[in-house]
């Protein structure tokens, strides 16, 4: 049975140091919660490189191509000469192409982050822990999965964590 521990820290430096410390001791699958992005945390957690930028690039290029196709298609289907300009007037298309590129890229980024961060779950075991809501206010949290064959809730894990100066260590319920 795998259980994990939630560790609370008062500062981002302590969170960063704890993540590095625990990873050096061989703990994997660490997850961190902080009210703002902490520089260097991804590397400290050993997280693989995010694929969201690639998704955003593909989304943005799709938006670009789609609006170009719509504008060009509309020009072919409904030829309307404005101000004596040629029917195919690329400069006039560009503002819309620019806007849809940004829109599609931003929507892709938003949806990818919502889905990949697990924000669509109605409930998570961490929600039952009182005080965890401070992870969006002023506290920094780390979850450490502790494999513990004896059934004792991670005694070795707790000892290892004690060196990281946590505010408190709480066991996380099973999902």
């Amino acid at each position, binding site marked *: 049975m795998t259980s994990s521990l939630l560790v609370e820290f008062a500062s981002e430096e302590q969170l960063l140091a704890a993540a590095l410390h625990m990873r050096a001791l061989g703990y994997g699958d660490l997850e961190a919660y902080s009210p703002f*992005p902490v*520089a*260097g945390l*991804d590397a400290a957690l050993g997280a693989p490189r995010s694929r969201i*930028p690639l998704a955003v*690039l593909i989304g943005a290029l799709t938006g670009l191509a789609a609006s170009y196709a719509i504008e060009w298609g509309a020009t072919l289907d409904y030829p309307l000469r404005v*101000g*004596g*300009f040629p029917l195919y007037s690329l*400069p*006039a298309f*560009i*503002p819309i192409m620019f806007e849809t590129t940004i829109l599609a890229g931003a929507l892709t980024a938003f949806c990818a982050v919502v889905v990949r961060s697990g924000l669509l779950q109605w409930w998570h075991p961490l929600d039952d822990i009182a005080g965890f809501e401070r992870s969006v206010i002023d506290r920094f949290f780390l979850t450490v999965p502790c494999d513990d064959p004896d059934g004792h809730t991670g005694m070795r894990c707790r000892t290892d964590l004690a060196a990281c100066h946590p505010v408190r260590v709480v066991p996380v319920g099973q999902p």
Partner: protein
Amino acid sequence: MTWTSVPSIISALVLSLGAFAALSWDMQADPRRVALAYLVAYAFGISIPLGVLAWSMICDACGAVWFVPLRRVADGITACFPGMALLFLPVPLSLPLIYPWAHHVHGLKQGIDASHAGYLNPTAFTLRAIVCFAVWIGIAETMRSWSLTQERPDAPDRTSRRRALAAVGLLPVVLTVTCMAIDWYLSLDATWFSSVYGLLHLAGDGSAGIAAMVMVFAALSPRRGSPAGRLPSSVGAEHAHALGSLLFVSVMFWAYLSFMQFLIIWMADLPNEAGWYVVRLGGTWGWLGLIVLAAHFVVPFALLLSTSVKRRLAVLSGVAFLVLMAHYGDLYWQLVPAISPGGSSLRWCDVAALIAVLSGGAACGLWRARGLSPIPTHDPDLAEGLRYRSLR
């Protein structure tokens, strides 16, 4: 610990003087073209310290600690302003050669009425240039001296003053750059106007300034056997990433404003506005315009999307060099058609003018950087700046 040596200062000075001698020789053959070549080269030269000044003020006003280890690099480039002011002198002296409003002999005063003459006349031009230089030199020198006083161990902390001046000074800098762009460049075509022209120039200056900072940063970065006078090894990929992001922003801002100016004029299609573009988008000028678009926006934009390009200083300085070249091409494309609407090849006088301005400015910068450490050693924010990690 020094950046510079006496031989490098002297050789820059000699190079500049030699180029001036070549220019004055060429002046006898085609004075208009030589005067314009000098204006284009000067526009390129002054854009670098201006762009660095604007970015350095923005970073200070925002309290960007990552910029602190590179502050001496930025201050080193803006220290060229007094030399650049001296190098400006040939421009007011050659006014009647290239500016139609200063031209009284050949009847080229078309479209200039009494209301223009009150603004566009040699005395007012010179006075406005003096005000511009006073603002730039005043701000740059004050900020530099506050940073240099901190080199003394017992010196008072000037960070908050620097920050306040940076915030307050940005408005006069934008206004004087607009004034400069209208006076020095836009008035080559005394009947054409565009309200975004000053800001567009500032965007180009910002790109050139950041590109130049990247190249100086790369030149000063530590190498094997690290000699004295180089940046410490803790200034590296993270700071390159931040500078690369600013370069990315700069080329996008430049492209956005350039396109908006074009789009508005193209849509209205009024003769007195569109004429400027008709000349510059036809024939050989059109090809140069496309090259500038590719080298100043499309290629750097595509490359700088990648994090690994921004973090590798050697690759980033290649992109920066491309942007600098494209910035020169942009100024050439904007200014030279004013006297050669049919097209003009790059001439020796263009190269000589570029060498004269750049090595003259560099001599001033190198001279003033004598004996200075490449990082602000006693800046209270230095330690935090060296620890900076960019978000990925």
